[in-house]
Structure formats: structure tokens, C-alpha cells
């Protein structure tokens, strides 16, 4: 099978690019794919922390492109899954330490050994973004249901199209279905109307993400996590499975609602 290079991007910061990369990477590894995640946020590296692999870093992406080490010396194998690897960013340099051309060579090198290469893109539209996009053959755009995030996502989709990436998919992250029902939050149709690209998944707002991020354990490993479940479904869609998108999944109900439900059942 031909390997895929997927860049995960958003334009705006803090919408969940790194969380999405960590969870999709882990979920794809659970589906027995050979996966490598590349952190291109040089100077502000996070992906290793979210995956709980920070203490294993010896070499990083800048060492690889400068020839200070071999590629497989810098790759960190995940502690949970055999097929999951991380190429960490450098923390002491900045985005200009790598060029788009070097990134392209790097991803082509990785294609030989891996099925899926996930590139975690930094926020912004400057060189970090150009680096991340350079070797990719498809993109996942992450947006939250806020007007500023959607605006930035729109800008990013335009830039992706300009650099030849026409098949972008959208993940709507941190959706609160209760707020949407009240009309206080943009709903999925509003967002798709503006962005007009294909939707690959909706991830609900979930407190368990904060907990799992702090622990360095991706949420997909927890069966009970709703966000984790959403990421598992997205990973299966990435592998070509056709799953319906559960737009308005039941928000975890409080005790009053549960009581009401019981009454309804009794009737």
C-alpha cells in the first residue's frame, strides 16, 4: 500500500492540532498501521509531552536534516505500540532551522518505512506552516466552532490549495452540542457552509482530554472517553472505512436528565 503523508493544521493556535495528531497517530497504530508523527513546531515542541515521550528525546528533527544523526536514531518508538514513532521538534532552535525542501526529502525518506506520516503543523502561516505542508499529500484542517477559528481555517484552506493540496478534510473540534442546541454556538452546517470542504469527523468537548494530555496518555486509549471514541472513528475513516458522522451525540447527561429519561422509560 502507498504511504500517506497527512499534515494536521489549523492556522489558529489552541484548537487542538497537537491533541489531534497524538490521538489519530495512536488510533492508527491501534489499527496496526506503521505510523510516524513529525512535530514541526520547532521552538515550541509539545507533541512529545502529550504522548508522554519527552524523557526519551536524544536527537531531533534539526539534527536529522543537518546530518548530525541518522534518521532512525532520532525516531522515538512509542512505549505502548510497536508501530508508532515520533520524530520530535528541536526546542532550542526556531522555524528557520529547517527548509521546505529538507522537509520534503525527510517525508520521502520516511515513506519507505511507514504507512502513515502525520505532520503536526505549528500555528500561523509563516515558515513553520510552509515546512509542514511541503511534503504532504493531504491535509486535515482542525477548527473549533468559533468565528475566529473558522476564519483562520478558511485562510489555511486557501493556502493549502495554493500549494497544491486540494483534498483537505475538516475536523470540527470541541463541539458542545448543548450550546449548539441552545443556538449559542455555530453548528456544523454553518461551518461547512463557509469552508465547503469534506468533513471527516466531529470531536465533542470533553474534559477527559485535559486529563489524558496531562498524563501523557492519548484519550483514544480510554474506551470511556467520548473524544477518544470520535478520534478512533476518524482514524477508521482515514483508512477508507465509511462510517456515519455522529453530529449530535448525546451530551453526557446530568442526574436530572437521567432521572427524566428513567421516567420516560417507565411511561
Amino acid at each position, binding site marked *: 500500500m502507498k504511504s500517506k503523508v497527512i499534515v494536521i493544521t489549523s492556522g489558529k493556535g489552541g484548537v487542538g492540532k497537537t491533541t489531534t495528531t497524538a490521538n489519530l497517530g495512536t488510533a492508527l497504530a491501534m489499527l496496526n498501521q506503521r505510523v510516524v508523527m513529525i512535530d514541526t513546531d520547532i521552538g515550541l515542541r509539545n507533541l512529545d509531552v502529550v504522548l508522554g515521550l519527552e524523557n526519551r528525546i536524544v536527537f531531533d528533527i534539526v539534527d536529522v536534516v543537518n546530518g548530525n544523526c541518522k534518521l532512525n536514531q532520532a525516531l522515538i518508538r512509542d512505549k505502548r505500540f510497536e508501530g508508532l514513532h515520533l520524530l520530535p521538534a528541536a526546542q532550542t532552535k526556531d522555524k528557520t532551522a529547517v527548509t521546505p525542501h529538507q522537509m520534503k526529502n525527510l517525508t520521502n525518506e520516511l515513506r519507505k518505512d511507514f504507512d502513515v506520516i502525520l505532520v503536526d503543523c505549528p500555528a500561523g502561516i509563516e515558515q513553520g506552516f510552509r515546512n509542514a505542508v511541503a511534503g504532504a499529500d493531504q491535509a486535515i484542517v482542525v477548527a473549533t466552532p468559533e468565528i475566529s477559528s473558522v*476564519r*483562520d481555517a*478558511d*485562510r489555511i*484552506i*486557501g*493556502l493549502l*490549495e495554493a500549494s497544491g493540496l486540494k483534498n483537505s478534510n475538516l475536523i470540527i473540534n470541541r463541539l458542545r452540542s448543548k450550546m449548539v442546541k441552545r443556538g449559542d454556538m455555530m453548528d456544523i452546517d454553518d461551518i461547512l*457552509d*463557509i469552508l*465547503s470542504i469534506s468533513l471527516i469527523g466531529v470531536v465533542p468537548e470533553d474534559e477527559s482530554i485535559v486529563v489524558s494530555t496531562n498524563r501523557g496518555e492519548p484519550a483514544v486509549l480510554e474506551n470511556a472517553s467520548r473524544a477518544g471514541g470520535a478520534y478512533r472513528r476518524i482514524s477508521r475513516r482515514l483508512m477508507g472505512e465509511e462510517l456515519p458522522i455522529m453530529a449530535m451525540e448525546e451530551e453526557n447527561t446530568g442526574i436530572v436528565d437521567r432521572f427524566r429519561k428513567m421516567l420516560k422509560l417507565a411511561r
Partner: protein
Amino acid sequence: MAIATTNKSEIYLNIGTLPSFAELEDELMYQLSNLSSYPPGTLVRIDIGEQRLTSKQVREVEDMLLDHGFYLQDLMSNGPPESEGDKEADEHPFDHMPYYNDTVMICRHLRSGQKLFSEGNVVILGDVNPGAEVIAGGNILVMGSLRGLVHAGAFGDETAVVSAYRMNPTQLRIANHITRPPDGENVDVSIPEVARIRTDKVVIEKLKL
């Protein structure tokens, strides 16, 4: 009674007064089928006697001629002059639209941060999203949702128009007039509209075709 007289590169058709436009069309169709030996590009002059045609009907006649490769040179009529009422009914939103030689056609969405400039007209088969800008010396036509900023008649042409399938711009400029949607009002219109300057004000009205 129709007579077709010709010289080398021009055909003269006297169709005469017929009671309806449909009959005129039939007659014209019949006449044209007899003239198929003439080379494409031949000019045609038509005399329609006492009848009067609306500008839409004239366009239809032109189209019929074009189907045979002919061009309408002249349409002669000695009917009564049009009354004011007829004129009003026949007015078309694009009748006073200025003519520009070059037109740019874009077949994709214009997204935030993308900017398009043309000295003539701009036609967009797609949306113009918030944060995108379209600036044209002439007219702007958006065959999609217009949510960004547009500027028609950018060199000062006050007769330029902006039309959109869904008109919902962040800001709309025509020549040196700058307008924006009123604050706090969220009008959801689901029909095509056209914006132009009327009596020194930008107005948006339903697009009737």
C-alpha cells in the same frame, strides 16, 4: 408576405406585419432555412413593418440568426413609438450596466486572505468568504455566497453593479460609495440580489431576469 432580397454579403428580409411574435419567429425560421447557402458571417437586415419588439425579443431574433451563422445588421420597424409604461415594464437590471472589454472568470472559492483584482468585470463561480477581497474596475458577479469585501467600479464608475446568488457581504463598495450591513440586523435572504447606485445611494434589490 416576406421577401428576401440579397446582394453579395448582406441579406434583406421583409417579413412584414404579423399579428404575434410567435408567428414572426416561425416566418423567420422558414426564411432562414431557405438561406442556408449563404456563408457564415453574412449580415441580415430585417423589416418587421408595423410591429414593435421588446429588447428581449430582439435578443431572441439575434440568437436565431446566430444559429444560422448570421448577424443582425438592422431591425427596421415603423410601428408607433413605445409608451413610457412599456419601457418601465421592460427595464432589466442589467440594461444600464456598463460594458467592459475584459472579464475574469474564477472557478473556485475565494477564501480569507485571497485578493482578486481586475480592470474589467469579475465573474466568480464559487463563494467569496469573509476576509477575501474582490476589486474590479467593472461589474462583479458572484455565482455563490458573497460574504467578503467587494469593490465594483473601482476607478469611479458609478454605474457598475454587484450581483450575487446570496448577497451577504462584509462590506460592499461601488465607485466611491462604501456600505456595510446595518449593525445588529441579521437578514437572511435566500434569493439572488443586485446592488447598484440609485440616486446617489447604494441599493440592493431582488435580481429579476
